[in-house]
């Protein structure tokens, strides 16, 4: 979510520190920051709000509230500070919630005689900073309030609605709606629509309809500030492939209480920007949200954190976060603000304390000695000793994909749709692996490619672990892997490799050269020097003695990192090698 630094400043009595400091504060106490971008004289933070905080933090106010707690700066201009009074009530508009389960609240605000026009510069700048295009003063005002408070809003042209009897109902199967993006959407009865009279005028929580769009001719407007069910909106937006800033907020589940704050802010801003006269509000809110409480003890906080905080430390965190509490002999009872739907159990409050105080204050303490004997896992012990045994016999361990061209079980939804089955055997994968490695034998300096895999297959209706092997001499085969009774795992060696080295993807060329040894002169060194960097592997592959004489046979593998070598250039290198060996007294066989 894009958050403007200049926008955040408006919540405080003085400008906040620079964006990089805000980014650090949020990273270590609240949310990850995906980046900071310059936008004119503003800086925009990309804040990754975690799913548990989608209730309250998908807005500038939400982020400002966090920064207020973290940086100990009072939030002097909080749009959620005073409870709004939605007056007067109008009887010109009615709201009928047929499915209250999926719409917890619907407020309509009716303003007459507004003047649609361009937005002032400050509003355009704010919206552009967070990646929004300015449309007109009315639409911009509703967007601004959403990005400011987190409450999605919508404005209808009241004159085009046809009726001021508004409602929320299930869509009809196959009903077609042209949304504000001028595209047609075919709805299903699992989706909700906003209605005016009998006509559908919006996809609830997702997007408004084109027929009642605001334009230059609009005089009277209905502002919608509602609360739609998160799951329903998420499914609708996904099915229509229409995720909007509104739907992403409803998906996270927001408090129905927020709707009145959003409405009040929107009406105030619209009247400031576009004039008009407020006819009044209708508020359909059959079951108001109940007060929420959560409690935690000082002892619990310290037990979970492994810390020794005092009641005063905890109280300080709650004050900074704006969490009203009562404390009695080490028990804190927090009266949870309506928007913090994530705070339910003691552990939730422990997290608030820990992150605001800072996880860097938690010291690293070793686990105390364990008084139970760890069990030896029979499967793992057997697999480990098999690995050792096979490695000693020259087999290398491979790990091939569990996805296959055929098998008993099929994956329903593989994104790349290749190899959609779960393998029923290790054999095809091992055979493929053998074929792939065979051409690299000389490069690897191996006499024979030998591979094994201990892996899962799905066969005869069950998931089972198999041991498979393949060599150049023996076809791939597998058997059921059997666990072993072992008293311990043994002290087995682990890789001592320091760093992975890239290998060339180009073909290589092999040359052998055999010489009669000359005293102590190092033939290999001469070969290495003359063959140069293209000789990636030089190995003594044969040595025998004939009377006084010793024959040494070397295999040289040539390969380039950036091209395919030619026979001609390798022959030229070998010629250089032969010349130098001869010069040093070697007789080439």
């Amino acid at each position, binding site marked *: 979510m894009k958050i403007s630094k200049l926008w955040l400043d408006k919540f405080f009595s003085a400008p906040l520190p620079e964006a990089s400091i805000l980014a650090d504060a949020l990273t*270590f106490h609240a949310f990850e920051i995906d980046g900071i971008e310059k936008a004119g004289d503003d800086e925009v933070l990309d804040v990754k709000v975690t799913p548990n905080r989608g209730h309250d933090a998908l807005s500038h106010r939400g982020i400002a509230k966090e920064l207020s707690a973290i940086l100990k700066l009072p939030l002097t201009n909080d749009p959620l500070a005073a409870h709004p009074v939605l007056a007067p009530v109008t009887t010109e508009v009615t709201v009928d919630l047929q499915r209250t389960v999926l719409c917890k609240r619907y407020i309509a605000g009716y303003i007459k005689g507004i003047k649609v026009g361009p937005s002032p510069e400050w509003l355009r700048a704010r919206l552009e900073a967070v990646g929004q295009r300015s449309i007109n003063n009315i639409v911009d005002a509703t967007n601004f309030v959403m990005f400011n408070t987190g409450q999605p809003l919508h404005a209808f042209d009241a004159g085009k609605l046809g009726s001021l009897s508004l409602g929320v109902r299930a869509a009809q199967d196959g009903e077609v709606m042209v949304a504000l993006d001028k595209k047609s959407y075919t709805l299903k009865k699992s989706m909700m629509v906003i209605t005016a009279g009998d006509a559908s005028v919006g996809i609830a929580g997702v997007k408004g309809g084109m027929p009642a769009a605001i334009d230059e001719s609009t005089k009277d407007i209905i502002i919608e500030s509602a609360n739609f069910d*998160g799951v329903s909106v998420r499914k609708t937006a996904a099915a229509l492939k229409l995720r909007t800033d509104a739907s992403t907020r409803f*998906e996270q589940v927001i408090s129905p209480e927020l709707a009145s704050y959003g409405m009040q802010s929107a009406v105030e801003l619209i009247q400031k920007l576009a004039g008009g006269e407020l006819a009044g509000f209708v508020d359909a809110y059959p079951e108001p949200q109940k007060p929420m409480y959560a409690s935690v003890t000082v002892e619990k906080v310290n037990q979970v954190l492994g810390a020794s905080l005092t009641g005063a430390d905890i109280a300080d965190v709650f004050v900074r976060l704006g969490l009203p509490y009562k404390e009695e002999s080490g028990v804190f009872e927090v009266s949870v603000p309506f928007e913090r739907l994530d705070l339910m159990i003691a552990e939730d409050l422990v997290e608030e304390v820990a992150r605001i105080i800072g996880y860097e204050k938690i010291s*690293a303490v070793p686990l105390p000695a364990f008084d139970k004997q760890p069990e030896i896992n029979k499967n*793992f012990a057997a697999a480990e000793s098999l690995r050792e045994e096979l490695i000693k016999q020259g087999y290398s361990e491979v790990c091939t994909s569990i996805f296959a061209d055929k098998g008993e079980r099929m994956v329903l939804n593989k994104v790349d749709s290749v190899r959609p089955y779960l393998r029923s055997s290790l054999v095809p994968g091992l055979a493929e692996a053998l074929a792939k490695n065979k051409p690299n034998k000389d490069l690897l300096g191996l006499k024979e490619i030998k591979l094994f895999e201990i892996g899962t297959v799905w066969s005869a209706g069950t998931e089972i672990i198999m041991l498979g092997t393949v060599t150049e001499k023996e076809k791939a085969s597998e058997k059921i892997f059997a666990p072993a009774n072992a008293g311990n795992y043994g002290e087995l060696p682990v890789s001592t490799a320091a760093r992975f080295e890239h290998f060339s993807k180009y073909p290589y060329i092999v040359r052998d050269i055999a010489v009669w040894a000359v005293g102590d002169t190092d033939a290999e060194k001469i070969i290495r020097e003359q063959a140069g960097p293209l000789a990636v592997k030089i190995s*003594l592959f044969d040595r025998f003695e004939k009377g006084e004489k010793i024959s040494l046979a070397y295999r040289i593998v040539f390969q380039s990192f950036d091209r395919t070598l030619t026979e001609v250039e390798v022959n030229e290198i070998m010629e250089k090698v032969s010349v130098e060996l001869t010069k040093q007294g070697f007789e080439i066989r």
Partner: protein
Amino acid sequence: MDMPPDAQFGHLHPISSLIREANQIFLRMGFTLAEGPLLESEWYNFDALNVPKDHPSRDMQDTFFVKDMPEHVLRTHTSPVQVRYMESQIKKGAEPPYRVIVPGKIFRNEATDITHEAEFFQIEGLVVEQTATLSTLKGTLSVFLAGIMGGEAEVRFRPSFFPFTEPSLEVDMRLTGQSAPEKLRDKWIEMGGAGMVHPNVLKNAGVDPKKYRGFAFGVGLDRLAMLKWGIDDVRYMHSADLRFINQF
């Protein structure tokens, strides 16, 4: 014939080497190694772990579903084994303390590239006992990461969210000292997720959350291998290419 001796020996896959080394480190701290199925029920993969029914991670795009196996998925993490392990202990009448690690293959339904694989490896740790605190979690991770990577490992937490832990954390490490790999030395590196086990998870496994608490962590083994050895393409792990494997 005079062959260099190591040409006759095979090589251990780098992931197997890491799991072996991890097991050695954790065994010294009293951890038991546990395993579980790759094709897992939604109950163990999601519900028991406090992932709500309508959580986006259950949507078709992230998770592999299997034909004719309703309510089953290719496990998206090793965490289902947390619940399976605790349940099996309770069934045997063995109350906590528990210390378990779970290394194994996990799945994410996404297109592959140099940093993404549809199948990859994770190691999970679970401790359930009175001494499980954020402090001992930090200490445990520090011992593990230093042991695997070399040098001294400093561990840093950042706030995060997972449905199965509360508080939830992102884990960063910084390696210091001469025996730490030079390219990684003195830098903060993201390692994985962790947290205190959510009381609902303990409850779902039959452990009384009023009596016990726990911590858990998950670290990607492919990522660990890539960092430790400077491997730049995750797809090497499943390549079965000995030009890769025989370097380890």
